[in-house]
């Protein structure tokens, strides 16, 4: 019995890091950053490029961070001279596709920071995926490049 238990634990120990990697490497994240705002800003925007390197469609269904009250996905749409922000229930990325979160388009809306963030700080984001995996990524806080 003990032998079986040890064997099972060994198997899990061997498999688990592999699973975590598998989840992590289904999506790759590039050029991620959070835009620094005034000290009293109640919302900040986060941007990045997400590429789906797996063979199936993956959605990011939720995001949260210890540094913010909540995080939403939004898309800015320009139409008829108006800028509208449309909340997105999730961010869906097809196999091989890249979704770019950038100014005037898709972005993370980081709501009610618990304390002001400055350039040089980092934001750890926890992302829940449609695959059931949960991954965390770090985004640097900075000003936009000129």
């Amino acid at each position: 019995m003990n032998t079986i238990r040890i064997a099972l634990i060994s198997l899990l120990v061997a498999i688990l890091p592999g699973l975590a990697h598998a989840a992590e490497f289904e999506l790759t994240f590039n050029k991620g950053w959070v835009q620094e705002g005034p000290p009293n800003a109640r919302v900040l925007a986060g941007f990045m490029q997400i590429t789906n390197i797996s063979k199936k469609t993956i959605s990011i269904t939720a995001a949260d961070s210890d540094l913010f009250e909540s995080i939403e996905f939004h898309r800015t749409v320009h139409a008829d001279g108006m800028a509208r922000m449309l909340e997105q229930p999730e961010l869906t990325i097809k196999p091989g596709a890249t979704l770019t979160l950038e100014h005037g388009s898709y972005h993370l809306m980081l709501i009610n920071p618990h304390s002001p963030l400055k350039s040089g700080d980092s934001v750890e984001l926890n992302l829940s995926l449609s695959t059931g995996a949960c991954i965390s990524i770090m985004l640097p806080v900075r000003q936009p490049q000129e």
Partner: protein
Amino acid sequence: MPDNPANEKYPSNQFYWWLALAALVAGILFASFTKSPRQAPTLEAATLLTPPKAVAPQGLVDHLGQPFELPQLEGHYSFIFFGYTHCPDICPATLYQFKRVAKILQANPDLYKRTRFILVSIDPQRDSSKQLAEYVSYYHPDFIGVTGPEKNIKTFSRQMGVIYERREAENKDSDNYIVDHSSAILMTNPKGQLQVVFSAPHNAESLAKDYQAIYRFLEDES
């Protein structure tokens, strides 16, 4: 040498040269004494309104709590954007563009002195003067924030051709509502009249270039 028959029927070539010269001189004199309509400047992103449109902000306050009405627009060219401090994407992006425009214009101190950058809040419920003071000065110490009673903001925005609409959050008690708003940047002239509309997307270099062209055009005219 045979005579040229033309010389007999018509005045000499010299006569035509004098005539052409006289016409040229007359043309130059005419042009300098009459105010002919000048070519409007070529613009990248701006629309020049001719004639400009009168506006009259009333009952508004700036980020220092001082009155903000027509006299505060007079004497300057003002870049004006209608936004709000809870706006994550468009407003910070536009204020960063203002900051870059200010940096470009500071190379010409005379021009910069006549220029103002103003954020008018379309969310006066959450944007007090105090909130705006901290917000706009983060981008630039010279920037101005304007707020006031909702109905005064509405009147001024309508005069400026700006529309906005508050969209309630799913949770009605939540303070996290969104305000959709016009993305254009407006400019008033030193008489406080709406003179220029800059359409989105905004780019600091185009804003500065168009403004400088418009400034030269309008200053030459006056």
